[in-house]
């Protein structure tokens, strides 16, 4: 059979014979990718406007909406803790808002069990607006109209980036379930 078609015994995740997933990778991938995404906005130096999208939140929404059932409902607490260490918002902000976001998606999922991608994008867009607005309101500084206007580029960029984040999550998911381990 191999002589006719070398890929006869493989699928998208690699060989189906004598190979298995790596448990550690399969379990740690969503958590690790969200944590790394939380840390990434530290690197660029933005002095005028908040220009970098909240990548940790984007990845959290991506994993939760593209691949439901992987992250538990309470994932917002530990992941928010990591985000709080690096984001510059007052400590506890991401823990609070991310927990609420996970609960909100749970409610949406209960109401609309069958959804298309654009519906997920709409949900994510609403949650991103809410998150950035809450971030402006609860930043620890006096919320001024100018800093609200300064949020708009970041907001548009973040909403437009969600489909890319979703595709990236799907790619990571394939990578996560590749059969690396020889039995």
């Amino acid at each position: 059979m191999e002589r006719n078609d070398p890929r006869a015994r493989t699928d998208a995740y690699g060989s189906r014979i004598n190979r298995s997933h790596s448990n550690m990778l399969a379990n740690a991938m969503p958590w690790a990718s969200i944590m790394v995404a939380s840390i990434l906005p530290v690197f660029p130096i933005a002095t005028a406007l908040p220009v970098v999208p909240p990548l940790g939140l984007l990845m959290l929404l991506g994993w939760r909406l593209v691949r439901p059932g992987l992250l538990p409902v309470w994932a917002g607490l530990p992941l928010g803790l990591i985000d709080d260490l690096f984001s510059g918002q007052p400590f506890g902000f991401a823990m609070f808002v991310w927990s609420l976001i996970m609960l909100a998606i749970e409610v949406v999922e209960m109401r609309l069990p069958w959804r298309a991608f654009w519906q997920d994008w709409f949900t994510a867009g609403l949650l991103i607006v809410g998150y950035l607005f809450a971030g402006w309101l609860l930043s620890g500084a006096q919320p001024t109209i100018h800093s609200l206007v300064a949020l708009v580029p970041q907001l548009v960029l973040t909403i437009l980036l969600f489909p890319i984040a979703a595709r990236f999550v799907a790619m990571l998911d394939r990578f996560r379930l590749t059969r690396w381990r020889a039995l």
Partner: protein
Amino acid sequence: MAPTGSRRSGYSRRAQYNLFTGYVIAGIGALIGAILLALSFFQPQLFGGVRGAAQGGLSPATETAATVRTGSKSVWENISGYYRAGSKNAQLKREMEIARIRLREAEAVKQENVRLKGLLDLHEAETKPVAVARLVGSSASSTRRFAYLGAGSDDGVAVGMPVRSPRGVVGRILEAGSSSSRVLLLTDTESVLPVRRAGDEVVAFAEGRGDGLLRIKLINLGINPLEPGDLFVTSGAGGYYRPGIAVAILTETTDDGGLARIVSDPAAADYVSVEQIYEPEAALGAETPIERELTD
């Protein structure tokens, strides 16, 4: 996307309890977050230690990225320097000659200044920077404008010290970890800096607006004497910053002052230096609430 079925627990007690516990923990998580958030509103420095340690743990990566950032920028400057190099060179030579003359004049003025201060019996020690380091990162996704500095309390950096680049003021140390510290940039909405117009004694406050501009608020209201293009320097009031460091250039006038752009963009600075607090006693006095008496 089809429903995953993870919510259908069926008759399994264990699955039902797991599901329920998940919701309870998520609710408790939101509650814990809200409590910590309220705590950090009243005590902003409470979690500084944890954050400083996290930043310190990240410093190998951020230091490397900062090195690459400044390195790649100079490569670009080298390339763009070749554009019309000849005419630029001639112009720079002319400017250089004028600048040399002005520098000598400034030295003479400085000399005279020292002599006059000596007559008045004023002593001013030469200020040496506490530390010179790179800005290694910033809170690029948050509404607040913080930068992270690659030097901490191990290098002598302490809370309140001014940070400056060769061009002008960058900000003030807000939290100092052992090997990294957090800088409140001038553009943050919490940043207020006493300034005066270079050349005369028009004093004002420069407040961050949160959108990259500074709002210049004149202290003496009346006819607004400001004009676009005016340079503002630190006035030394408040005790944190040494007087005479460049801060901002006015771009637009308003009723009570104007809008200004910062002179020293931290993103463009290779290295910044942390300086001693100019007058620690005055800074302490400015921070003490009015109800409490200052004792010596």
